[in-house]
């Protein structure tokens, strides 16, 4: 059984159906990408997994436990970490306070310190700026902080929503290599990206979403070379 499994998830915003029976899975060690155009339901899928949005139908299970009815806050403790769309940092707090809040569910001081060091190792910029108010960081630094903050909860799975959005190409490269590095250290990743090419390159497997439905799935390699995916999302 996979680490994370979605079965026939339907999510509504008011009366508008945003997800139309989504089933997907992420296994230990994997990088799984979710690609699709704007409004296809990628962010809604992540919000449903993290519990910010509740599905009308379907079930979500994580690490062998059905979590459909579990609150968003408790899911963090179970090991679901997310760097949300738009980063959603606590803009009036310092970099350090943001990271400390990332470890909110934990009590193991030594472990928290170890993970803090690890985040600073991944993102040396954050260490330099640890006392700075996070709202005054550059876009790239904010993205690093959002990822670092999610890592502070010691997630068993890390969900990243548009980590490269709005960043200069060189910074995008950095972010993607860091994603690979985090995954290399053993954390599976569910990645939502508008930069489909990059996402498919780094992903083991990927799903293609269209208006709330998964229309295609396969390995990153397969989708990279699939003609309709190339036409629709890679601009080829």
């Amino acid at each position: 059984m996979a680490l994370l499994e979605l079965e026939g998830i339907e999510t509504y915003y008011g009366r508008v159906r945003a997800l139309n029976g989504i089933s997907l899975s992420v296994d230990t060690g994997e990088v799984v990408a979710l690609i699709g155009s704007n409004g296809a339901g990628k962010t809604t899928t992540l919000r449903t997994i993290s519990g910010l949005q509740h599905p009308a139908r379907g079930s979500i299970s994580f690490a062998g436990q059905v979590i459909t009815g579990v609150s968003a806050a408790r899911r963090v403790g179970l090991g679901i970490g997310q760097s949300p769309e738009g980063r959603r940092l606590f803009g009036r707090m310092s970099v350090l306070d943001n990271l400390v809040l990332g470890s909110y569910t934990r009590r193991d001081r030594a472990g928290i310190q170890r993970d803090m060091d690890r985040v600073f190792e991944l993102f040396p910029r954050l260490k330099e700026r640890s006392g700075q108010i996070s709202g005054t960081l550059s876009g790239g630094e904010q993205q690093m902080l959002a990822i670092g903050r999610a890592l502070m909860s010691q997630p068993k799975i890390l969900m990243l929503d548009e980590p490269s959005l709005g960043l200069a190409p060189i910074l995008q490269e950095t972010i993607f290599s860091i994603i690979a590095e985090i995954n290399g250290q053993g954390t599976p990743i569910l990645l939502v990206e508008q930069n489909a090419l990059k996402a498919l390159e780094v992903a083991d497997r990927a799903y293609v979403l269209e208006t709330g439905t998964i229309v295609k799935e396969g390995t990153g390699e397969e989708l990279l070379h699939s003609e309709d995916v190339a036409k629709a999302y890679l601009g080829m």
Partner: protein
Amino acid sequence: MSIALQRTRSIANGRLGSLLLLLALCVVLIVVGQRVLSGGLSFFIQILVFGLANGAIYGLVALGYTMVYGIIELINFAHGDLVTLGAFIGLAFFPIFGLVEGKDLGIIGVAALAAVFLIAMVLTGGINVLIERVAYRPLRNSPRLAPLITAVGMSFVLQGIMYLWKGAFQIHVPDILPGTRLPLGPGASVGVKDLIVIAIAVVLVIGLNLFIDRTRLGKAMRATAQDRDAAQLMGIDINRTIAATFFIGAVLAASAGMIRGLYFNTVNFSDGYQLGLFAFTAAVFGGIGNIQGAALGGLFIGLVKAYGDAYFSSAWTDVYVFAILILVLVFRPSGLLGMRVPEK
């Protein structure tokens, strides 16, 4: 109201408007100056201390408005009534703890008074948590007007309950604080009472600041105030955090009610309503949602009221306090301190 505000704004923006405003300000300053000079320095200082003591009470109440607004953007119109409720609850425990008028407090008395404070604060806090649970939480995702109207209704409910409890009388609060006055000069003195009130308020405000800055729950409250969804993604239980905010706000309100009762030695079931409006003005003046702003705003309103009452007439208190509210809303809606750093 909004039409009147717009008109005020257009007049204020015009050249003639600014000239008139300047003229009015000059007249006020001259009149004030004259009266201050003829009143003498020690009288001025006496009023200063009285104003600070009053302002400390407003500040404690304003903190509750600002914290609740900061976390769920609700102007909690029932907040002022918690002040009276706290005083009523405390009053009920006075005889049980042997706190009666005319006896020197002594160490045991101080301990007993502290215990009564604690009981009043905790019970009022608990009641406010209950109110949030039954009246505001179900409306959290409704349009903002719904909880606002509910808060107004809750204010009437609380006043009704307190009216049934004690009636419409002025209830006497035992005069147990030392009545000693320290001489300041010819015809003026400062009460030890005033100093005690200011000291208690200062300790509470500093404690609150440390709590919000340093503790886990304090950080969770700030995070929830800034971004509720992101707070949940940190694993913060926002229901508990919001409940804690209501608890702390009510604790401060109850302490203000107790302090006020001991200071003026009288309390009426409707006192909190009026006090709440002043404290709300203080919170807006300081920048609603801003903790330091609320404390400063409270002191400011207290001083304005004290000096206004002393040099003009207490019949006009409402007019100039609410004139301040309107001026702030027109010219600086984000308040004195506002929000300092950009959102998101």
